[in-house]
């Protein structure tokens, strides 16, 4: 016993927690929205998601080999990027599109910055805006829910932008996801179930999602109609990628502020930018750009929102 005692600095115990445990829990929390996507848009949604995940994980693996670093494909983080990218795609895209997007997400969005923990921007959103800029036609053609012959349909936000109204679309329909849109963004119910898992586990806090959604709602209520204070804020909460973005992408640890105070600012910023793009921008939807812009502002926010240290003013 005398010579083989382990000596290390304190503390000597560790919380049963790991990156893999957090990441796989996030994957689990995304499953309800994935199932909803397949029910609403059919099996093509499943193929798109699986291909994106496969491409993301493969790219992560190849980079691990090339950079001679630890192979991190089992920690679940690349899987999340694949799923989130797929959730930001229409179900009827050609099957090479999710592959190209996922490779771009991991390679350019994550690995060139140094891999896990180093990316400035949310990798899945980097992939999405790349696809959006390169193949806008595929990215903005959506199918009608539950249609066998892939009838195309506009998203509620796109219809609004063009001044049209989708008839017979109630708030309940929006809540359940019975309308055109990206695979993982339409079913609010399923997304909230997943969000609840993450909130209960303490893996995300309320600060960013609540301020993000509230700010978007407030801003669209004030400015969203021809007269002030007449906007359909509930419509804006329930349509597009706001819920998916607020709970699952604006809460990405790596690219968001560390302190509660910083997260509140981040959430408000995302909400403002989303509302501005939706109401006056060139795109019907602004969630992806809003989050990416605020990701870029994160180091700046971190600098000015340090916690107060005990015993100081």
């Amino acid at each position, binding site marked *: *016993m005398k010579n083989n005692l382990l000596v290390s600095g304190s503390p*000597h115990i560790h919380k049963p927690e790991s990156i893999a445990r957090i990441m796989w829990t996030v994957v689990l929390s995304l499953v309800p929205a994935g199932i909803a996507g397949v029910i609403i848009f059919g099996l093509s949604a499943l193929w798109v998601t699986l291909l994106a995940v496969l491409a993301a994980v493969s790219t992560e693996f190849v980079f691990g080999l090339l950079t001679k670093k630890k192979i991190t494909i089992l920690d679940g983080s690349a899987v999340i990027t694949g799923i989130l990218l797929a959730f930001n795609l229409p179900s009827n895209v050609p099957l090479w599109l999710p592959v190209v997007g996922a490779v771009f997400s991991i390679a350019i969005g994550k690995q060139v910055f140094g891999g896990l923990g180093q990316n400035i921007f949310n990798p899945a959103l980097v992939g999405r805006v790349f696809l959006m800029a390169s193949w806008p036609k595929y990215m903005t053609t959506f199918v009608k829910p539950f249609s066998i012959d892939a009838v195309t349909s506009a998203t509620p936000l796109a219809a609004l932008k063009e001044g049209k109204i989708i008839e017979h679309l109630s708030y309940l329909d929006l809540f359940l996801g019975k309308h055109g849109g990206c695979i993982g963004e339409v079913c609010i119910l399923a997304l909230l179930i997943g969000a609840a898992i993450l909130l209960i586990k303490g893996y995300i806090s309320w600060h960013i999602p609540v301020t993000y959604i509230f700010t978007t709602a407030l801003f669209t209520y004030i400015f969203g109609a021809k007269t002030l204070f007449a906007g359909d804020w509930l419509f804006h909460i329930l349509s597009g990628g706001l819920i998916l973005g607020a709970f699952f992408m604006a809460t990405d640890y790596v690219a968001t502020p560390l302190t509660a105070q910083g997260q509140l600012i981040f959430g408000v910023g995302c909400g403002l930018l989303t509302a501005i793009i939706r109401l006056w921008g060139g795109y019907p939807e602004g969630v992806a750009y809003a989050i990416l812009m605020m990701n870029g502002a994160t180091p700046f926010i971190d600098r000015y929102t340090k916690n107060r240290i005990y015993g100081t003013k």
Partner: protein
Amino acid sequence: MVRLAENKHFTEDVESVKAPIPARVYLPLIQHLGKICNPIVKIGDVVTLGQKIAEIDAHVSSPIHASIAGKVVAIQDWPHPVLGRAKAIVIEGDTEINLPSFQLKNHQEIDLLSLEQLRKIVFAAGIVGLGGASFPTHIKLNPPQPLNILIINGAECEPYLTADARLMVEKTDQIAQGILLVARCLGVKDIYIGIEDNKPLAIEAFKKFPEFKVKVLKSDYPQGGEKQLIQNILGKEIGRGKLPFDLGVLVQNVATIYAIYEAVYRSKPLIERLVTVTGSCLEHPKNLWVRLGTPIKNLIEFCAPLKEAPAKIIIGGPMMGIAQYTDEVPIIKSSGGLLLFNKKEAQLLEEDPCIRCAACVRGCPVGLMPCQINLAAEKSLWNLTKDYGASDCIECGICNYVCPSNRRLLQTIKQAKLEGVK
């Protein structure tokens, strides 16, 4: 503040017993914060139990006493639980020597003690803060300004440790007398005892005294930290660089109070203390009265048989305790626990990159951002670590504990603290 797995069930209901008196004790010349003592005995000298054997003429120091009667056989370098190695006086026991009985003294005499006299007794008895910091107690009994609040620290927040909890239950009346004595000498009327809600017996025991306000605290770590205790009892913070004195507050640990009682009421210097000997390796974990200087291997033997060989031995608790490299190391004044971890518990986890999850930021009880200090420290950006307040770290270990990437945050913060004073 975080909730930890307590693991106090091994020993919290185990009544304390006396550990066998060792054949030899190894008494390091430094067991306190301050100046190292000089031996005042020579090799070959016969010493009685409680005889002063080392001291130094310095304000911040504390004398050392013989914890067994016998003969001084060596004054040599020896393993030290905190410093690695230090000079120690080795005494070989001799049962032939008459032992003092440490009889109870006359109460009337004690009731007339002045603060000055109390301070002299406490200094002469070698009493230091037994909560772990080992700061000489006589200095804390010399406030630069009048005090109005005495807080007794019964918040033993380290997992596994139950020595203070047992002491509060088994020696309630003695501790109460000690508290009242200290309060009277200091002229303090407001007395709080902070105890966490995982120690219902101790809470019950002290509620019967109308003189004390028992504050039931949450069983969160580090509730027993001086700053946290004051904050959670009085709702006040000690300003940066200030002391509890500046709020008119004195904090004393229950074990220290018990030592003061023993010194004043029974003329007994600090020669033994209660130690929780525990961990999954032990068949029979115990709370032991241990003579200072007892090698830990004697205690492990006494708690035998072992279920498995320990892979890591810690003196203190699992959050702030110190891993030992040998079982020859002795128990000293600050050693409240002896922890034996098996191979699985001792396993070092691999470090992953920081994912900025901010668990450490939320967990830090003093409001630091450990992950940021860590990143700056890795690049040796010591000005930046200073800006992030590294010097305010209380080294509780929560940041390491909660980090999903198993990053050694505390180690780099400690380094930043050292660099900060260069």
